[in-house]
């Protein structure tokens, strides 16, 4: 093919995405969030875990002049830890929690979904029964069961409990992805272009890679865009319940959990991580919606 005027689905999608204001705003926020997470050691003014009780519960810079300090622009928590630094380091945990389990989910889910949907038979049966079992419980409940069961073991200790959260979220959520992909593949398998590829002499591998996969990728990408904030939210929920990330490692959920008891007299340490969660969630939602529209070449 010539290079001039070459169009690809992804390039077209990118230009459609660029035209979508809400999605671009979402993308900017997500990029900013990722940057903060990656650059946390540079950006954070203090050690997020080390506090000085003499400076505890300082107001943010817009608070009561008697109880604030220019050294802690967003104030401190009850242990005197800098809220700004903790928010910044939390972004790092959230980023990991958002992307690592989702990568596992996508890898396993897409592979299993493709095989189950395309070849059917026992692979499909097995998948659907697994789906039935896992869908019988609320997702969060299932995660909580796994986390509480494995918290005392060596896995629970790895990375202050982050690894256990990866594993539990991935265990529960890959079936959803597999089911999504399977459904897409089943619908595609009935379409004539798959028959056309077979009639042309394409191998199964080629059909899966060239014809099936690109057509299921769009919903997968959209699912990822919604899955990432979902995982973050799960982590926050677990940490809020006290079974997620082990303190003193900060995460937005942990911060809310710790600040919760004192929320009446000192609401800021709770509100600020809550705002962070909401903004990032909203950004991902906008981005996900934008991607859904952009990836449909018929739009």
């Amino acid at each position, binding site marked *: *093919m*010539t290079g001039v*005027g*070459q*169009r*690809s*689905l992804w390039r077209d999608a990118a230009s459609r995405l660029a035209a979508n204001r809400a999605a671009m705003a979402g993308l900017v926020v997500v990029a900013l969030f990722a940057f903060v997470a990656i650059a946390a050691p540079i950006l954070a003014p203090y050690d997020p875990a080390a506090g000085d009780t003499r400076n505890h519960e300082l107001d943010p810079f817009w608070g009561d002049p008697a109880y604030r300090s220019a050294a802690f622009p967003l104030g401190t928590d009850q242990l005197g830890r800098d809220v700004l630094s903790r928010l910044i380091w939390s972004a790092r945990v959230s980023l990991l929690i958002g992307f690592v389990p989702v990568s596992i989910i996508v890898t396993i889910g897409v592979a299993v979904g493709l095989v189950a949907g395309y070849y059917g038979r026992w692979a499909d*049966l097995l998948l659907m*029964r697994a789906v039935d079992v896992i869908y019988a419980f609320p997702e969060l409940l299932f995660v909580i069961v796994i986390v509480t069961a494995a918290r005392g073991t060596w896995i629970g200790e790895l990375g202050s409990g982050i690894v256990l959260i990866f594993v539990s979220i991935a265990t529960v959520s890959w079936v959803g992805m597999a089911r999504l992909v399977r459904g897409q593949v089943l619908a595609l398998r009935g*379409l*004539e*272009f798959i*028959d*056309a*590829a*077979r*009639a*042309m*002499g*394409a*191998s199964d591998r*080629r059909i899966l890679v*060239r*014809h099936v996969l*690109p*057509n299921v990728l769009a919903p997968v990408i959209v699912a990822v865009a919604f899955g990432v904030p979902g995982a973050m939210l799960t982590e926050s929920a677990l940490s809020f319940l006290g079974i997620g990330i082990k303190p003193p490692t900060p995460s937005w959920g942990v911060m809310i959990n710790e600040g919760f008891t004192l929320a009446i007299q000192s609401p800021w340490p709770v509100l600020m991580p809550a705002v962070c969660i909401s903004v990032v969630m909203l950004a991902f939602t906008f981005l996900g919606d934008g991607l859904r529209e952009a990836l449909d*070449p*018929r739009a």
Partner: protein
Amino acid sequence: MTVTARGPVAQGSTASHAPHLLEVTGLTMHFPITQGLVFQRQVGAVRAVDGVDFFVDKGETVGLVGESGCGKSTTGRAILQLYKPTKGAVLFDGTDLTKLGGEAMRKQRRRMQMIFQDPYASLNPRMTVGNIIGEPLEVHELAKGQAKLNRVQELLRVVGLNPYFTNRYPHEFSGGQRQRIGIARSLAVEPDFIVCDEPISALDVSIQAQVINLLEELQSKFNLTYLFIAHDLSVVRHISDRVAVMYLGKIVELADRDELYKRPLHPYSQALLSAVPIPDPAVETKRQRIILTGDVPSPVNPPSGCHFHTRCWKAQAVCSEVDPEFKVHAPRHWAACHFPG
């Protein structure tokens, strides 16, 4: 179920010494109906194709007509091994396709192609036209890079499209243009034989004629052999050399085109022909119509004996008991009926 060994294949072979390009004998395609949550057991079968015999000679067009659910499309797909036939043989240039393994079959596919009904579903929406038409070249390692692009552009020209359309997506084209893209794809590997599965039924009247003409031009240009599957008897008459009529999984009649349309022997063929409206009020007001009663029975549980006896005005006791043999009644004219004519 009886599969007649003395079908048109055997007799056709003795009549002419040149071997047929395609010989189908006793082709049967049953789709199992299963039940059960974990352990699935078969509780029945959709008898989509139920013992079909015919042959296609090089360079001719055989039309396969019938109403929806008669098994005509399934026959086309089973011939190309898109479904694994339950029974029967498909001899293509002397090779039994049903006995070929995956790789050997894949190689054979270069010689046989298919044109599909739905111009919207038959093209991958996420591939450019260039990639769609170029893919068979890649699969069979016929051309790469610039050579491939040149060939794709040539093919686009052959089917009457702008050769510079290679970078466009299928959704940017109209139904008729998409059908041309599908035709270009099937021509890419220079096949001998093409199964056309209702290639025009999704198109508008004025566009249908464009595609029919194109198919005819291509046939004479590249010496193609067609199996033309359609429900429109007028179109089949126009394009075919010989016509086979299917009803509930069986071919009930097969003859040269004019012979079949002038002298249909099977009551079903007669009813089918009389049902087609003719765009001429002078003819239409004078015509005697045979109106069949009822609907086509289910292929899961087809009637005993002759499948057509439940709707046939000539049916007698024997029709519900004995499956009529598919035999020759006139030169090159086969029918499966106890009371033909």
